[in-house]
């Protein structure tokens, strides 16, 4: 019995020793810069988690094949350690801890969603690990005074305020009436705050302000109110559920509203799932392939779209594009810092001022990107029922003219 115990302890000691020696590779090994990322590969965010991972991988391959990262006269290649956070914030925080303290990762890429980024940010901050994230847009991420968090995307409060401006512009500069329906989660509520700011700024008036539950799959009550109040604009934000439910019920209940603006249309594959019923919906997007930003690695949006489609078999949603951009930012920062010292890299990140195929990137004090406006596209369908997303605002990037007001259902 005792002998067995001794053998057991010996074997466990060996296992522990072996596992730590395998896991303890540091941030830069040989010619490799190892980044860490906890990504939702399973669980409710897994679709967008996979888009994020594909975006990261695409950029790693591209940067590595085009000469890698030059630091101190030596060329390095990117490599990423991924863990699956199961779409669970607690797990994400544990994995960040593990990546940093066990795997020795010194630079991180962000997870998918504001909620998970919120869970990871305190950990990276504690260890002073610079993190470039591409999928956490919640405003609250940028007001906590984090020094090591950098987001390549525009914050959530800028998602739909463009729509209010557009409606006011169409109303000859006069204020409009706005109906709002927002899910009760960090992201959508930030979008709501942005819309409220825009309403105040433009002298508009909110007539409906509904909060949708997380288990949202029925918003008939909100839409009945919209029918009754006849607002000029209806704004909806509730991730893919919200976008799909809204279009389904608006078309079924024949709700006529001059302007309908939403988020997450392309993630919801709106035009694919709803066809012509989704026509005329305005959608906030971080990126669109027709934007004319350029860089040396992916050339421009159209090329990125073609290359990504070739590699992964589907057109890149903006979640993939922004994830690729995060790697370009890291490469640029490493080269400018000319060092792997975390503090120097952090300072270089803070001083970033560059253009990528995804957009201009320049970080504010809080870490959010302030140099890239959101775009609005409108779903436009031809007679055969083939639908396409076309950028209609801001005017600088517009590839089609906004159709306003939306024709009533009786005339469609």
């Amino acid at each position, binding site marked *: 019995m005792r002998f067995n115990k001794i053998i057991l302890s010996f074997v466990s000691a060996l296992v522990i020793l072996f596992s730590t020696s395998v896991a303890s590779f540091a941030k830069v090994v040989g010619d490799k810069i190892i980044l860490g990322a906890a990504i939702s590969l*399973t*669980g*409710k*965010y*897994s*679709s967008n988690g996979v888009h994020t991972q594909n975006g990261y991988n695409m950029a790693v391959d591209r940067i590595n094949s085009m000469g890698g990262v030059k630091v101190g006269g030596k060329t390095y290649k990117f490599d990423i350690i991924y863990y699956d956070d199961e*779409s669970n914030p607690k797990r994400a925080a544990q994995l960040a801890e593990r990546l940093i303290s066990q795997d020795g990762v010194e630079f991180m890429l962000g997870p998918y969603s504001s909620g998970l980024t919120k869970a990871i940010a305190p950990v990276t901050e504690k260890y002073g690990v610079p993190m470039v994230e591409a999928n956490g847009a919640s405003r609250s991420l940028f007001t906590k005074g984090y020094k090591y968090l950098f987001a390549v995307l525009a914050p959530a409060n800028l998602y739909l305020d463009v729509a209010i401006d557009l409606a006011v512009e169409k109303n000859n500069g006069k204020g409009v009436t706005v109906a709002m*329906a927002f899910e*009760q989660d960090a992201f959508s509520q930030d979008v709501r705050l942005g819309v409220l700011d825009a309403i105040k700024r433009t002298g508009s008036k909110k007539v409906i302000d*509904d*909060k*949708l*539950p997380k*288990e*949202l*799959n*029925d*918003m*008939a*009550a*909100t839409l*009945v*109110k919209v*029918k*009754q109040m006849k607002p000029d604009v209806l704004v909806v934000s509730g*991730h*893919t*559920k919200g976008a*799909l*439910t809204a279009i*389904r*019920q608006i078309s*079924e*209940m*024949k709700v006529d509203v001059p302007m309908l603006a939403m988020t997450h249309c392309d993630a*919801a*594959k709106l035009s694919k*799932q*709803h*066809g012509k019923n989704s026509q005329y919906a305005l959608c906030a997007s971080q990126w669109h392939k027709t934007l004319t930003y350029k860089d040396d690695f992916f050339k421009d949006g159209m090329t990125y779209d073609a290359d990504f489609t070739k590699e992964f078999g589907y057109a890149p949603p903006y979640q993939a594009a922004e994830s690729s951009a995060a790697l370009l930012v890291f490469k640029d920062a490493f080269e400018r810092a000319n060092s792997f010292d975390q503090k120097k890299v952090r300072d270089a990140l803070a001083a970033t001022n560059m253009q990528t195929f995804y957009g201009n990137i320049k970080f504010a004090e809080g870490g959010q990107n302030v140099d890239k406006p959101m775009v609005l596209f409108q779903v436009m369908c031809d007679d055969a029922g083939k639908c396409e997303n076309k950028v209609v605002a801001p005017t600088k990037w517009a590839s089609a003219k906004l159709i306003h007001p939306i024709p009533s259902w009786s005339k469609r």
Partner: protein
Amino acid sequence: MDFMVFQYPMISVQACLDGILLGILFALIAYGMALQWGVMNIINIAQGDLVILGGYIAYFMYLYGIHPAWGVIVAPVIMYFVGIAIYKLVINKVVDRDLFISILATFGISILFMQLMNFAFGADVVLANSDYGTTMLFNNNVVLPNSKIFSAFISILFAICLVIYMKKSKLGRAIRATAQNARAAKILGVDTEKVYAATFGINAALCGVAGALISITFTIHPYMGLPYTIRSFMIVIVAGLGNLPGVAMSGMGLGVFEEFADYILGTEFRIGSVFLLLVLILIYRRFKLSRKREYLK
């Protein structure tokens, strides 16, 4: 608080009709739960997940170009066998144990189903388009999507068929006998094991029908099952076991209650109000029971 629903009478009519149509669908799911609860004394936490799985069957038919309405025939057939399989693998091991064990077991099945559906079908929110159009009433002031009317109609049809089956068929009578007294039924030659399996299968089949209807009327997602479990639990608690008219009334009542809560308190309190009602009813029942106990003493 928003009392718009009372200012415009048409909104009240809309809320009532929406609630009734929705409630009939809930009642179908709840009837399955009441059936297996009554017969096997099992509270099935995975009820909502069976519903969602049924929804995915209709959705996949839709993807392959078959009209999703056929899902109300195909989904219950497939789900019946899924139900039997779950019974053989897990439920038969907990059927005679106390309620807590069965809740734990079905909770486990629920988690497993969510993850498996996520793994197999992805985490995207999906729906099946029926293109059934809309019915306008009262000078276009009340709008009813035909998909909701279709759902309610099919639910009623299935409920009626089930009642007739329970009354007339041999298996139906065996199920009712087992529900009344399993031991006596066994002594009199009823194969209770078979009855249990069939009951669980029938419940899963009802969930399949409801799921197919939900994919046509609303949206489905691997993690959307729980609200359906809660609603059916609530309906069964109010109506009691083995009381089909009670289940139907309580389902419609819950539907209307949810709609009005949505208008008055706001959509964010819709599911919350169901929970609150559940707690209130449980407290009321306990209060009533304790008074009865005192009286007996």
